[in-house]
């Protein structure tokens, strides 16, 4: 039974680890993509000392996107903190494979979840906003591409298509990640509720009733 529980514990650890890595990569890509867009668009305006309102507004929007992506990145790293130790510990304890070490891991993971629940929910917000932002950006890019299709060189067309596909992939990923996080939170909330019930039963044992 312990082996089965250990396996289940480790499967969940691996799944959530992959989810956090996805978040960190997504947030990092979103930030770098945003900065890569801001610099070439803002530099000509500074050099020519002329302000184009539409470009400035779009740049402002991208800056906001970058700030949200930064928040998303920080929240991901905060969630990662502690979880990584837990994951390392689970590898060590698996070698011991006894009931107490497994119970200890479960207690630690529950303590970690209670502490980090707010950060985990922050991931959903950051991911959703960044995903929506990139989908909007993909739509704008395809509209822009459609309007200048006849005068665009094949090289620029390829570059624009790559930009569009990147935005689309990041946008879809950003909108799918919250779904996985919601399932993770649901699984854990169920356990926390069950542990509250367990606490009541343990209280009766401690009080000698």
């Amino acid at each position: 039974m312990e082996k089965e529980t250990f396996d289940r514990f480790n499967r969940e650890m691996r799944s959530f680890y992959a989810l956090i890595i996805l978040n960190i990569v997504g947030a990092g890509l979103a930030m770098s993509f945003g900065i890569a867009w801001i610099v070439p668009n803002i530099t000509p305006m500074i050099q020519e000392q002329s302000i184009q309102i539409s470009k400035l507004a779009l740049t402002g929007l991208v800056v906001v996107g970058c700030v949200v992506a930064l928040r998303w990145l920080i929240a991901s790293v905060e969630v990662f903190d502690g979880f990584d130790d837990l994951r390392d510990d689970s590898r060590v304890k698996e070698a011991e494979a006894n009931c107490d070490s497994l119970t200890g891991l479960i207690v630690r993971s529950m303590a970690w979840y209670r502490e980090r629940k707010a950060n985990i929910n922050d991931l959903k917000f950051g991911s959703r906003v960044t995903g929506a932002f990139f989908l909007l950006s993909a739509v704008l890019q395809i509209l822009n591409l459609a309007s200048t299709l006849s005068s665009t060189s094949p090289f620029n067309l390829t570059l624009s298509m790559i930009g569009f596909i990147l935005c689309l992939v990041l946008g879809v990923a950003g909108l799918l990640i919250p779904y996985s996080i919601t399932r993770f939170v649901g699984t854990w909330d169920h356990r926390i509720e069950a542990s509250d019930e367990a606490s009541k039963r343990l209280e009766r044992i401690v009080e000698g009733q």
Partner: protein
Amino acid sequence: MKGKRTLYEIYWEMLTFCRNPRTFTSIVHRCSLNSDIGQEHLDFLLSRGFLKKYKDDGSNLFRTTEDAMVFLDAFRAMYLELYNKGPEFKL
């Protein structure tokens, strides 16, 4: 251990750690408690007969008693059940 633990999770940690005789300092250090809270929990577990205090070579040591086994066994069974029953998260 970092994070938010319930009272019973802290008791479980203290009792499991004290399966071998331990000093007060090592208990509060291992269970990440401040000395006031640690003393409060120790007093409670002593009052329930789950821990026994004795002197050895001038040191005050604490050891888990047989009476605590009911609590430890129930705790372990309940927490393992949390993982064995209910939904499992998969990507």
